[in-house]
C-alpha cells in the first residue's frame, strides 16, 4: 500500500445502508466479518510487498499475521470510553458519531480484535487517506484481488464505532523510515474524513507492518467455529503465510508449509467484453493524456482505434480498425473527444457482442501451484492421497476464470464428501447450496467414482478471476453459469477418476499381497504334507519349503 496510488471516491454513509450485504447484519456475523476483513487487508498488503520486493530483486519476507480476539467486559469498555474522553485531544469521541447511538443488543458481548502483519506498513501521511474514507482503492486497470469491496478494514472500523463508539487504534511502520506511527482514529460519516483523537510518531522503532485494534460488540459463540474454519481453509490456499490466532485463552497456529510464493496477480487492461457503458464513459474521461499518444497534434486525444488498442487488452490497431469499421460502423480515425452519447452507446453494444476479440488473458491471474496446495492439505487435512486437476480456462463477461480442483482422499478425512470453495483464494463459508461449485459437485455424481459411505473426501475448488462472477453484492457464493458449472464438474470428475484409479491400484496391490501371503502359507502346508507322505526322503520338510519359496520368489515377487 505504501506504493499504491490512492484516491478518494465516495461517502461512508453507504455502510449504514448496506451493512447486511457487507456481512454485518448480526453480532455473530459482524465479528466474523471484522476479523476476515482485517486479515484480508493484511494479506493483500503482504502480497503487494512481496511483489515489490521480487521486482526489486530483494529477498522476500514470508507474511506473519497475528490475530487476537479477546473478550472484554462491558465495564472495561465504559472505562475506555471515559479514558478516551479524558485524553481529550480533539474531544473527538463524540464527534462524528451522532448518527450512531451505541446499540446494545442483548446477545452482544465486547471484544478487542487486533490484527497485525509484517507487511509494508503505511506512511504516516497516507494513513488518513487509507483509513479515513470509505471508498479508497486502485481504480484503473483490473486485477485479481481478495478485497470484496475495496474497503476491507474500514467496514470493520465503522462497525466498531457503531457498537462501542471507540476509536480504532493503528500502529504502522515502513521499511525505509525507522519509526512507528500511532493513531487513534474514527471516521466522520458525514464528511467522510478521518477524525484523530491521537496521532504520534515514535522514533527509533525499526519494525515494519501494520497493526490494527478494534473494540467492538459482537458474538463469538456464533463466530468462533467459522473463524477457525476460515483460518483452516485460508491457510490451505495461502500456505506461504503463518497465521497466529489467539481467541481468549486459546492459541492456534496455522503454520506456513511452503517456501514457494505463487505468482502474484498482475494488473491488466480490461477485456472489451467486460466493460459496460458507464465504465466505457469513465475510460474516455481519462483523456486528454499527451504522453501515450503517437500523434500529439490532436491535443492529447487519441483516435478511436488508438483508444481501443491502448486501453483494452488483446486489441491490435488492425483489429480495432476492422471492428470499428465493419462491426460498429464508425470511422476508426474519429477522435475520442468527438464521441457523443449515441456513439458511446453503439460502441458499448458492439464491444460486448463482437466475437472476434481474443479470449481474455489469464496470465495475469495468481494461481496457487498444485504442489503448494497439496503440501498444505497434507498438513491440514492429513489425507492419504490428493489429486489435483486444472480445469479449462473460460471467459465470463470479458474476465478470465481459472478453475483448480483438488480432491483429498482418505487418511484423517471423515467419511462423506466435504466441499471447500475458494474465490480468488478466499474461502467461501456461507450459502454453500446456492454455489455453482455445489451444483457442479451434485452433477459430477461422485458415487460413480468413490464410495463416500466408506471413504472420506474433501473436494477443494478454487475459482480465480479478475472478476469473480458472484451472484450478488454479498459475494457469499458464485453464480451458476452453465459454462462455469460444466467446467467445474468436468474438473471434479477428472480428479475423481484419479482417485478411483488410486483406489483400485491400491486394492489390486493389497489383493496381490494377500494372494502372495496365501501362496506362501499354502506352500508351507504343502511342504509339511509332502515331507510326511515321503517320510523326509528324498527331501526334508525344510528343503522342500526352501525350494518352494525360491520358486515363489522367482515367479511372483
Amino acid at each position, binding site marked *: 500500500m505504501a506504493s499504491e496510488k490512492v484516491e478518494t471516491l465516495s461517502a461512508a454513509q453507504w455502510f449504514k445502508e448496506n451493512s447486511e450485504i457487507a456481512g454485518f447484519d448480526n453480532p455473530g456475523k459482524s465479528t466474523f466479518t471484522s476479523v476476515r476483513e482485517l486479515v484480508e487487508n493484511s494479506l493483500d498488503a503482504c502480497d503487494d510487498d512481496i511483489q515489490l520486493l521480487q521486482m526489486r530483486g530483494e529477498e522476500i519476507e514470508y507474511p506473519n499475521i497475528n490475530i487476537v480476539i479477546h473478550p472484554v467486559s462491558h465495564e472495561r469498555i465504559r472505562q475506555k470510553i471515559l479514558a478516551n474522553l479524558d485524553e481529550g485531544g480533539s474531544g473527538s469521541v463524540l464527534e462524528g458519531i451522532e448518527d450512531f447511538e451505541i446499540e446494545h443488543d442483548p446477545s452482544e458481548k465486547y471484544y478487542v480484535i487486533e490484527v497485525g502483519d509484517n507487511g509494508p506498513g503505511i506512511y504516516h501521511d497516507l494513513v488518513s487517506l487509507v483509513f479515513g474514507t470509505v471508498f479508497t482503492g486502485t481504480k484503473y486497470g483490473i486485477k485479481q484481488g481478495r478485497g470484496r469491496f475495496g474497503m476491507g478494514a474500514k467496514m470493520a472500523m465503522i462497525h466498531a464505532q457503531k457498537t462501542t463508539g471507540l476509536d480504532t487504534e493503528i500502529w504502522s511502520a515502513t521499511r525505509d523510515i525507522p519509526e512507528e506511527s500511532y493513531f487513534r482514529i474514527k471516521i466522520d460519516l458525514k464528511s467522510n474524513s478521518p477524525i484523530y483523537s491521537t496521532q504520534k510518531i515514535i522514533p527509533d522503532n525499526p519494525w515494519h507492518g501494520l497493526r490494527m485494534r478494534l473494540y467492538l460488540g459482537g458474538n463469538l459463540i456464533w463466530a468462533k467455529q467459522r473463524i477457525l474454519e476460515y483460518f483452516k481453509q485460508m491457510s490451505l490456499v495461502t500456505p506461504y503465510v503463518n497465521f497466529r490466532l489467539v481467541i481468549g485463552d486459546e492459541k492456534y497456529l496455522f503454520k506456513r508449509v511452503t517456501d514457494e510464493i505463487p505468482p502474484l496477480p498482475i494488473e491488466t487492461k480490461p477485456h472489451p467484453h467486460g466493460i459496460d457503458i458507464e465504465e466505457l464513459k469513465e475510460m474516455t474521461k481519462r483523456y486528454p493524456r499527451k504522453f501515450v499518444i503517437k500523434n500529439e497534434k490532436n491535443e492529447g486525444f487519441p483516435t478511436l482505434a488508438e483508444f481501443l488498442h491502448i486501453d483494452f487488452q488483446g486489441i491490435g490497431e488492425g483489429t480495432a480498425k476492422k471492428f470499428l469499421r465493419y462491426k460498429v460502423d464508425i470511422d476508426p480515425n474519429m477522435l475520442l473527444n468527438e464521441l457523443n452519447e449515441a456513439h458511446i452507446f453503439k460502441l458499448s453494444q458492439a464491444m460486448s457482442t463482437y466475437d472476434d476479440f481474443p479470449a481474455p488473458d489469464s496470465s495475469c491471474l495468481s494461481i496457487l501451484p498444485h504442489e503448494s496446495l497439496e503440501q498444505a492439505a497434507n498438513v491440514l487435512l492429513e489425507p492419504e492421497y490428493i489429486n489435483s486437476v486444472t480445469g479449462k480456462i473460460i471467459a465470463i463477461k470479458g474476465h478470465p476464470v481459472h478453475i483448480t480442483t483438488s480432491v483429498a482422499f482418505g487418511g484423517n478425512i471423515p467419511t462423506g464428501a466435504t466441499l471447500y470453495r475458494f474465490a480468488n483464494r478466499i474461502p467461501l463459508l456461507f450459502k454453500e447450496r446456492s454455489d455453482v461449485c455445489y451444483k457442479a459437485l451434485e452433477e459430477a455424481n461422485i458415487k460413480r467414482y468413490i464410495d463416500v459411505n466408506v471413504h472420506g473426501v474433501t473436494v477443494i475448488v478454487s475459482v480465480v478471476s479478475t472478476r469473480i462472477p458472484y451472484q450478488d453484492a454479498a459475494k457469499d457464493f458464485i453464480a451458476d453459469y452453465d459454462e462455469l458449472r460444466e467446467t467445474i464438474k468436468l474438473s471434479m470428475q477428472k480428479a475423481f477418476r484419479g482417485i478411483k484409479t488410486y483406489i483400485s491400484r491400491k486394492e489390486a496391490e493389497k489383493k496381490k499381497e494377500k494372494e502372495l501371503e*496365501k501362496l506362501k502359507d*499354502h*506352500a508351507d*502346508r*504343502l511342504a509339511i*504334507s*509332502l515331507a*510326511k*507322505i515321503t517320510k523326509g526322503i528324498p527331501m526334508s520338510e525344510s528343503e522342500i519349503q526352501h525350494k518352494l519359496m525360491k*520358486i515363489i520368489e522367482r515367479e511372483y515377487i
Partner: protein
Amino acid sequence: MSQASQNLKFFEELRKLRTTEKEEMKSPKDALKIKELSLEETKQGIEDIALNLLSLLDFDERPRMSVPIRSAQNAIVDQETGKIFLGHNAVTRTLSPSSVRQLAVLIRVAEGIHELLALGRHSTKRELFYTDVNLFQEQIISDRAIEDLAVTLRTIRNATNIVASAKGKIIGRIRFVESGDLIDCTKMGTGGKAITPFQEQIEQIDSDAEFVLLVEKDAAFMSLSEAKIYERYPCILMTGIGQPDIATRMMLRKIVNETGLPVFAIMDADPYGLEILRSYTFGSKALGYETPWLVTENIYWLGLRPEDMDNYKIPKEVFIPLTEADKKKGKELLDEIWLQNKPKWAEQLKLMLRSGVKAEIQALASKGFEYMTEQYLPRKLESADWI
C-alpha cells in the same frame, strides 16, 4: 384261482426278470479307466504322487499335477447303455495363486489318507475334515478333495478308506455276514438295518426273496416295513432316503449281483423321483468314475407313475402343480441320453410335463392309510404293472 396258485404264477413272471450275468460292467473306450485298488496299492499311489511333485521341485520347477474333472462337463454317457462315466478332461494344480490352495488341500487330504492306510483304519469324511479345519474351512472342500484324490489315483473312493456316513436302510428276506456278524434282516423290527458304509465287509449274501422293493423315501419304507410287506411277498425292502449314497447303491448292486433279483422302484411322481431312479440305474455325474461299482441295471419303475393318477383314480386334490424348477429339471432330463434306453420312462416324464402336475408317494394315503399296502402294491405287482 386260489391265492396260492395266483402267487405261484406271479413268481414265475418274476423269475423271468432275474439276471444271471455277473461279469464286470464294460465302460466305454473314452471313459477314464478306474480300478479298485488294494490298500497297499492306494498307499503306493499316494507316495508316487508326492514323489512326482518332489522330482519337479528338485529341478526347480513348479510342482504340478493333473486332476481329472469330476463335473457334468466331463461326464460321458455310454451311447449304448445310457450309463454315465467320467471322461479324460483334467485340470492342472500347481504352485500359482489361483490353484495352490486346491493343490495344498489335495495333498493335505492325501497325507491324511496315507496315514489312515498305514494304520489300516477307516475314517469318515467328517473326521478327515477335522484333521485340518483351518485349511479346509468347509467340509465340502475336503470331501471334494477326497473324490479328486481317488479319481487321480484312478480308483474308487472306498479304496481310500474314507467312508461317508451312510443313511440307507434295509429290511426283509435277506441274510448276510457283516464284519463277521450274521445279520438276519427279517428280524429287524420295523426300523430296519442301517446299511453300513463299510461295504467291503459284507459277505455271504443269502436270500429267498423274489424281488427287491426300492423306495425313495423313509416314510414309505416305514409304512411298508410296519405292514411287514416282506412277509406277504418274499422281498427285500430298501431305501436310500432321497438321493442315495454310495453305500446304499453299492449294497443294492451287490444284492442284485449275488441273487439276480429284479428291483421294483417306488418313487415320487416328480422329476426328482425320476432323477433318483436314474442315479440307481445309470449313475450320477458327480460320481461317474464309480459307475461300475454303483449302478444296478435290473430296476423297474413300479410306481408312483404319472399314469397311475388316472389308472388308480387318485383324487385330483393331492396333485401338486409343477414348479418352474420342476419343469426346467423335467425338460433337462428329457434331453439326457440314458432316457432313450427307457422309452417307457420317457413317456411317463412327457405325460407329467403335459399334465403339469406331480404327486408324492404319500398321496396314496388320500385313499386310506392302508391303501398302499393293501391295494395299490398288490394290484401293481400282481398285474405286472412295471416298466
